[in-house]
């Protein structure tokens, strides 16, 4: 029993999600748990999930990406606007664009040594401006039949984007846990100097994280364009902070070195369910913003309290050696190596 409780204690995002799910299921009944509603919620979750997981990856590597919303919008616009070359070309161009923005962000942060927050705010403005010019400040609509299937269609009761996003989540989880690049991202985020001394190519890792994030934001853009069968200037506005909140609920830290794709997915699920429940209860948008913020603060505080307690316990129980510090941990999640 104790180990089950301890296992659950580490899964903040999962618990938050379940707690909210059960609360709304009890208070709203079939309004909330009906197939139609859950299908709708799952679809919204699935469309935003790639972007949130991308943000989590950047946070893990010690950065932050404020340009995700703008990249998503431009990717959506490209995937619709270039359709006269065929859907494959337009989607490919959208994702390539995301990689390009990610590379720009990565180079600004890694090479030019600009603080990630500032650099990505800059790219956000440029990319958002590009999108508005490209669409002439209006919305553009879809011409390829069947394009709407990927974001808007369903296989039985399950929305198609959900299948795509869950697969993506599993791939990212696998990459972050079992591939060198994944471990290196945690190392760089935890302590850049130590990682460098341990032989990690810090700059390459940082750029890679931003490129993955840009591409994932584009995937979200393409899925949204598919669902709405159009691209509108409002896409992705305010999504930056929302994605950070979701990633942090999922275990990521602004300081880096923590978190994961699965956690981010459930963090997003928690926020999406919260929004849906509040919509069904008729709570106005402004109260919703406040509630999201409160949830985020509660989760972060609880997490900090728990990880402080764990740190103090582990310092007492096991002597730490230099080798311990430099060996990448098998279970990333409790913070990077301590400074020597």
């Amino acid at each position, binding site marked *: 029993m104790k180990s089950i409780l301890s296992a659950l204690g580490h*899964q903040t995002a999962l618990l938050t999600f379940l707690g909210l799910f059960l609360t709304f299921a009890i208070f709203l009944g079939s309004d909330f*748990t009906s197939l139609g509603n859950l299908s709708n919620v799952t679809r919204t979750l699935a469309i935003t999930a790639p972007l949130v997981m991308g943000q989590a990856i950047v946070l893990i590597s010690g950065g932050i990406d404020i340009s995700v919303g703008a990249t998503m919008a431009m990717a959506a616009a490209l995937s619709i606007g270039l359709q006269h070359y065929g859907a494959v070309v337009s989607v490919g161009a959208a994702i390539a664009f995301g990689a390009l923005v990610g590379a720009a962000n990565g180079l600004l942060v890694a090479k030019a040594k600009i603080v990630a927050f500032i650099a990505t705010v800059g790219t956000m403005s440029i990319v958002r401006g590009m999108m508005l010019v490209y669409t002439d400040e209006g919305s553009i609509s879809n011409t390829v039949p069947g394009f709407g299937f990927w974001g808007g269609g369903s296989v039985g009761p399950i929305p198609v984007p959900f299948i795509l996003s869950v697969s993506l989540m599993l791939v990212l989880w696998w990459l972050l846990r079992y591939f060198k690049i994944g471990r290196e991202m945690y190392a760089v985020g935890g302590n850049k100097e130590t990682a460098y001394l341990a032989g990690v190519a810090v700059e390459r890792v940082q750029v890679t994280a931003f490129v993955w994030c840009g591409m994932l934001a584009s995937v979200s853009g393409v899925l949204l364009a598919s669902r709405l*069968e159009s691209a509108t200037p*409002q896409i992705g506005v305010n999504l930056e902070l929302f994605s950070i909140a979701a990633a942090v609920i999922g275990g990521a830290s602004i300081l880096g070195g923590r978190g994961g794709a699965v956690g981010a997915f459930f963090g997003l699920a928690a926020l999406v369910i919260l929004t849906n429940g509040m919509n069904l209860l008729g709570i106005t948008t402004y109260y919703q913003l406040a509630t999201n913020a409160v949830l985020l603060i509660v989760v972060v505080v609880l997490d900090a309290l728990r990880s402080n307690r764990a740190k103090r316990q582990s310092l007492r129980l096991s002597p730490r050696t230099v080798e311990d510090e430099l060996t990448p941990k098998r279970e990333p999640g409790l913070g990077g190596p301590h400074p020597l």
Partner: protein
Amino acid sequence: MQRQVKAATLAALMVTVALAGCTQSPADDQPDASTGSEVLTMCVVHNFADSVSVTAMVKGMNAEASHYDAEITYFDPANDPQKQASMIADCASRQPDVLVVNAVDPEAVIPDMKRASEAGIKILTINADVAEDGQQYRMSFIGSDSFTQGYAVGSMIAEGLNNEGNLAIVGGNPGQTDSVNRTEGVKAALADNNSKIKIVAEQSANWSQDKALTVTTDLLTRFPDIDAVFGQDDPMAMGALLAVKNSGKTGIKVYGVNGNKEACASIKDGELAGTALQMSELLGVSAVRAAFDLKVGRLVPDKILAPTAAVTMDNITKWEPQCW
């Protein structure tokens, strides 16, 4: 690894238990509209609860709803097209008699409207219609005709300037239907009055009062002999009015569209020259009536257009109660 497997299994069990209590079809648990209950259920997805025109429409709907046995639920997507699409899907799953949509974006809502209409739900659009390829999914559009609004303002300008002078137009979002139509309306009215009024400048201020202030200030500097300014909605007209006051120039007439309370007060004080009153409350009332007609199986016209009133200082006392 083991701990996480345990946690995941427990989580899966909890979710399964919760879902076991969920219904298969949303129609099972709700007072069923399709079996002909007397209550008219309406699901309204407007565009932004903070907008003055939406508040007026809602007021009209609630007032009319009290004459029928109607239950209206409102959803506010705060100008986010994705949220609005999601709310339309939400509404559709509750199977109301009628779904009313005030489109944030004319294209983005079409796929979800299509799905809702294919599920048998009757849809009305209010105030902002969807794009042409989406209009087949809605039974009727209840709104004001922006061309007529422009025409009303054009007539006021022709009269106010005695058919001679220079006009500057401060517009809404470039390319947006309302902006385009209102400008066309003004030009048509000026042509019909055989007026020699010249449009010296057309600049967009994106429906924003602050931007209109800056744009108008710059236009007044660039074109010193402007005699009239048309701000395509009242907030922009008020911004333009402030710019005119600040410039120290006298005799420049400013016109707007909407019939907002501040604009009407300004007309009464002799500052704003005129506005084209949109009857937003009437739109709400018409929406509920059309919804009832749809429920009992009557046909509704493709467009239900509310009239526009040209309001100046001469008739302000008559129209003031309708200002919103």
